[in-house]
């Protein structure tokens, strides 16, 4: 297990290095000179030179790359080009909206998908199964931002149970914040729950065909007991992978939902930065998102190997 973890750790580090190089290349090398990109074509040469020196662009590329990575490792993402404030602080403010939103959605999606998937599998081929499967078929076809708009129309505008958007801030109380995130989390969770329910169902059906279930039944367990005591636990392994993948998707997908509800999260930050040509902010947020995806996948791989020793051999 330790050898497996180490080999995964090495590949994690390599992925992070290559990903950071790709991001650095796209943001800082391809546009040519970020200083003239920011100031436009009519900028005077001395202004450009001053800005270049201020942003550290007079250094050679590899020095800038190493500085950037070394800074990030110490929690220093540089200063925003437009606001002149540390990018790390800007991100820290927004993460407390985006991260809880993704977690909230993940919990909702799991709570919805597990019972639905287990129910459908236990009713295989019967009307309950068909109903759940049709609902999930519809669920994966609905764009989450459109679903969000419909929910605003019903629950915020007509019923007035929630506000249509905005975020009061966590300092104004935990429940107020949770309430503001509820509609966004539901809209983010629904399509994911549909996918997860399908995976749960097919994984359970695979398990129900296994010999150990027949043994459990032969031993005298009822169908229901065999399902709950033996099949569900084993079926969770593939489901775990999907949950891991979904977390990174929910974090990135939250960027779109934040736009629907005017939430001050990473999405708002990144769009403001794009329109202000504040590339260093874009670079940092993208790196953060990719970092989360890679680390979550690593964690899922480890969790997977911890529950299923067979996987440790194929490093």
């Amino acid at each position, binding site marked *: 297990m330790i050898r497996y973890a180490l080999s995964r750790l090495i590949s994690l580090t390599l992925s992070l290095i290559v990903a950071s190089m790709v991001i650095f290349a796209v943001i800082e090398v391809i546009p040519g000179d970020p200083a003239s990109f920011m100031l436009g074509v009519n900028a005077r040469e001395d202004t450009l030179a001053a800005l270049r020196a201020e942003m550290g662009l007079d250094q050679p590329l590899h020095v800038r790359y190493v500085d950037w990575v070394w800074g990030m490792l110490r929690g220093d993402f540089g200063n925003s080009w437009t606001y002149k404030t540390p990018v790390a602080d800007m991100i820290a403010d927004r993460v407390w909206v985006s991260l809880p939103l993704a977690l909230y959605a993940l919990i909702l999606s799991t709570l919805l998908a597990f019972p639905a998937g287990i129910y459908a599998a236990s009713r295989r081929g019967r009307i309950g199964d068909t109903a759940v499967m049709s609902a999930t078929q519809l669920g994966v*076809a609905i*764009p989450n931002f*459109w679903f969000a*708009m419909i929910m605003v129309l019903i629950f915020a*505008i007509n019923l007035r149970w929630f506000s249509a958007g905005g975020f009061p801030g966590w300092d104004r109380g935990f429940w107020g914040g949770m309430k503001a995130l509820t509609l966004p989390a539901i809209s983010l969770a629904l399509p994911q729950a549909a996918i997860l329910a399908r995976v749960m169902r097919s994984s359970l059906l695979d398990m129900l065909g296994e010999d150990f279930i027949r043994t459990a039944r032969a031993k005298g367990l009822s169908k229901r007991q065999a399902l709950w005591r033996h099949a569900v636990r084993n079926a969770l392994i593939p489901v775990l992978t999907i949950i891991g993948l979904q977390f990174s998707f929910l974090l*990135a997908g939250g960027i*779109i939902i934040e736009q629907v509800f005017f939430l001050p999260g990473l999405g708002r930050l990144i769009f403001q930065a794009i329109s202000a040509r504040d590339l260093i902010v*874009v670079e940092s947020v993208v790196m953060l998102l990719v970092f989360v*995806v890679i680390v979550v996948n690593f964690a899922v791989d480890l969790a997977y190997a911890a529950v299923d020793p067979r996987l440790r051999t194929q490093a």
Partner: protein
Amino acid sequence: MKRGLILGAVLTLMFVAAALVSFVWTPFDIESLDIPNKLHAPNAKNILGTDHFGRDILSMIMMGARTSIAVALLAVGIGMCIGMPLGLWAAARRGAFIDEFIMRGNDLIFAFPSLVIAILITAVFGAGAVNAIIAIGIFNIPVFARLTRGAALSLWERDFILAARVSGKSSFRISYEHILPNIANLMIVQGTIQFSLGILAEAALSYIGLGAQPPTASWGRMLADAQTLVSLAPHVALMPGMAIVLMVLGLNLLGDGLRDWLDPRMRVART
């Protein structure tokens, strides 16, 4: 599940036909604004109603179908044309350095959600439909590469491939003449599924302003415009959304139906 296949094919063909017809005819001209007729609910003249500029929503949806289909189709094309050869190559050189290299490269691309790729491209080059195509296309590459490699690997173990090798064919010719025809069905099914994901991704990207720019009609942009009007005229938001749902549903049903119909043995895990 023949019913699903037929329903899916009908829905898909309906949108493809709408997109094609829009090249020669739409019920109304969407270039001209007709402000006095703005935000009309569905009626006999404008069967899906009008938007905030008085433009006919049915005509807009027909034009939007064109954008959606073009973007998603090209993105699937990019993913397939690059991903499939890479997968075939990796499978032909299984276990060698190039196999490892291609697969690790795929893992790396998987770490970049298509939204993030679109953000990167837009931040540097500005927004546009082409960026959406590239972003979704790049996202599709590892999907096809992995699927191709997985299917090809099991084919390489089969006796008819051994026979081809004994007869002296190169691994390039074997990949092209024997492996490719045997995975074509799988590619068609996955292509349909990626097509539907592409429609959703295009709508999301143009909704947040990273996709097709006005005056190009697109379903995502229609929804973005409708957002502030939801309480005044819900149909402005409902109609384009329904179009997306029906098209994606149709493609998914078509994909599932094709999978069962073309090869009942190949149960592909849906991603």
